[in-house]
């Protein structure tokens, strides 16, 4: 019984970290209606950044966020200007190929710069936190708290601030928003850069938990897409719910089915969700149908 509880709790915690990584993707997806295939590589770069900061300066990776989050915002801006913005008014295929090529580019640039070696940082907390018979990793607990804070903060922002309202208006109807005087291209830019900054935050949370290597993005990007599909595109609380589902399934299947299956887990899960629930948990938004007709 306590094993089951342990598994479910750690599943929830790891799932919330996955959710944090997917929020940026779901925002970009919901607002720009494009899929950024390079999302996983953004995460990879930010993880290398967080690793480098904590490795070179001996800093706690959570403090690295102070540098990594603005850096990723800037990086997102540059990518938007160079690649995304010129592709927006072209057929959907152009965005697909351009971001796919960007992902290959970043992956191989990282391979050249950093080699294929795994990079780790030593654990931040030297012992687990125990609640009764249950042990929880401090890094996961902190990640969970950061995700909750982030979700609440973004919710507040989208309901109460002008920027949030403008973003929601753009999601509902881009043309009408433009007619109402909302600078839609600037909203696109802010969303893309902000989504990249959130990936930077996620990377700082993930770097104590996972090793970094040039192709680390592929695993996580598939997870992020599963979460976006499950939670409904553009939905922040949906991403949290979807992330927690994925985390619990991963933790239970890893224990009860076969640990050796773990290598394939992300891919098989992605395919299963695509076969059985391409319209998400609630089936309200056809996220998997985006881009079929432009």
């Amino acid at each position, binding site marked *: 019984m306590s094993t089951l509880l342990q598994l479910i709790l750690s599943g929830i915690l790891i799932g919330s970290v996955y959710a944090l990584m997917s929020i940026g993707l779901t925002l970009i997806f919901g607002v720009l209606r494009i*899929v950024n*295939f390079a999302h996983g590589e953004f995460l990879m770069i930010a993880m290398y950044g967080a690793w480098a900061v904590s490795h070179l300066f001996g800093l706690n990776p959570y403090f690295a966020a102070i540098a990594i989050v603005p850096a990723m915002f800037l990086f997102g801006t540059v990518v938007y200007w160079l*690649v995304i913005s*010129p*592709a927006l008014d*072209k*057929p*959907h*295929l*152009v965005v*697909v*190929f*351009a971001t*796919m*090529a*960007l992902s*290959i*580019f970043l*992956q*191989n*640039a990282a*391979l*050249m710069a950093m080699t*294929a070696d795994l990079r780790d940082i030593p654990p931040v907390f030297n012992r687990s936190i125990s609640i009764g018979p249950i042990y929880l990793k401090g890094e996961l607990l902190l990640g969970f708290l950061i995700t909750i804070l982030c979700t609440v903060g973004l919710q507040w922002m989208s309901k109460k601030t002008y920027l949030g309202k403008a973003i929601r208006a753009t999601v509902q109807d881009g043309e009408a928003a433009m007619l109402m005087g909302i600078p839609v291209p600037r909203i696109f830019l802010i969303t893309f850069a902000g989504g990249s900054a959130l990936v930077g935050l996620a990377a700082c949370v993930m770097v104590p938990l996972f090793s970094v290597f*040039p192709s680390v993005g*592929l695993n996580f*990007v*598939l997870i992020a*897409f599963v979460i976006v*599909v499950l939670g409904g595109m553009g939905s922040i609380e949906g991403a949290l719910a979807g992330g927690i589902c994925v985390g619990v399934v991963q933790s239970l299947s890893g224990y009860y089915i076969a640990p*050796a299956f773990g*290598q*394939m887990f*992300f*891919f*098989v899960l*992605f*395919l299963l969700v*695509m*076969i059985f629930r*391409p319209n998400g948990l609630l089936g309200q938004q056809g*996220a*998997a*149908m*985006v*881009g*079929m*007709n432009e």
Partner: protein
Amino acid sequence: MSMVIPAPISSRRIPVLPKRGQISWFEIVLLVMSFGLVVSGIAPSLQDVILLSFLFAGLGLAWNIAGGYAGLISFGHSAFFGVGAYTSTILLLRYDISPWIGIWAGAVIAGLFGAVLALICARLRGPFFILSTLAFAEVVRIGALNWASLTGGPEGLSIPPMASLVGMVFASKTTYAALMLGYLVFVYAITKGLEASRFGYYLFAIRDNEDAAGAAGVNPLLGRTAAIALSAALTGVGGSLFAQYFLYLDPTYVISPELSFQFALLPAVGGLGTAIGPVLGSFLITPLSELLRSHLGNAAAGLHLVIYSLGLIVVMLYFPTGLAGALNKLTHWRPFR
């Protein structure tokens, strides 16, 4: 793009530049030149480049049937390549079946894998279709790595390098070049036939507007499945030929996302949904990649992909119709007017 202009009587002559469903002088000259390159007995170091250009042109054409004609962009075609290569090699090593037969067995099994992928993705479009193809190839790769009793696992499989016609192992690269050119011509002929056929028009209809195609009596699921299966089977043939040339296979290379990307890259640069596009793309990019590899070696792992991907971004943003599109513009070029 989907507009079909009825050919006037006067154009029954062979057109100069490639046209959908017709053989043009451009293609005939290209074929004669390729054949000339094979028989001229050029330096062996160059023969390597030439025969790989033929092989990859064929693979790009095979990808193009799904990606270009049916609009099913796949970044998982290396799975079919690997399945084809492994099938013919395992049949040869275990059961002593000649690759001349094994290749077709590989094509059938790769085609079945393609059909399975099409059914998995039956309800998916656009980005999620693409991600599913990626995930599918990863599952196949990890499966091949772990099923060591069949595939040899990470150590891979080696074909004994004894030249024999039955074993499809040749001492001279000229023979291999002829074989690869044969493959290219075979896939090209299928593509050209497809362009003029009813099935080809079904695929264009599904690509351009699936709902309208369905309403007009085309079964989209059947069309998509057939397109991916055909594309996968032809890719599998290419995989077997690759195995017969390199005489060595391992899952990390033959079923890699990089290889899948390369299959998609050639048609994208050459011109999606045209028969000549992948050929032009391969004749441009394959020599370039071999040149980079031989000059830089392993000193800069990944450099050729860095260059490709940058090139692809530029091509996609500024010349989305590729080389074939540029060629097409020539048709409307009237210098003396």
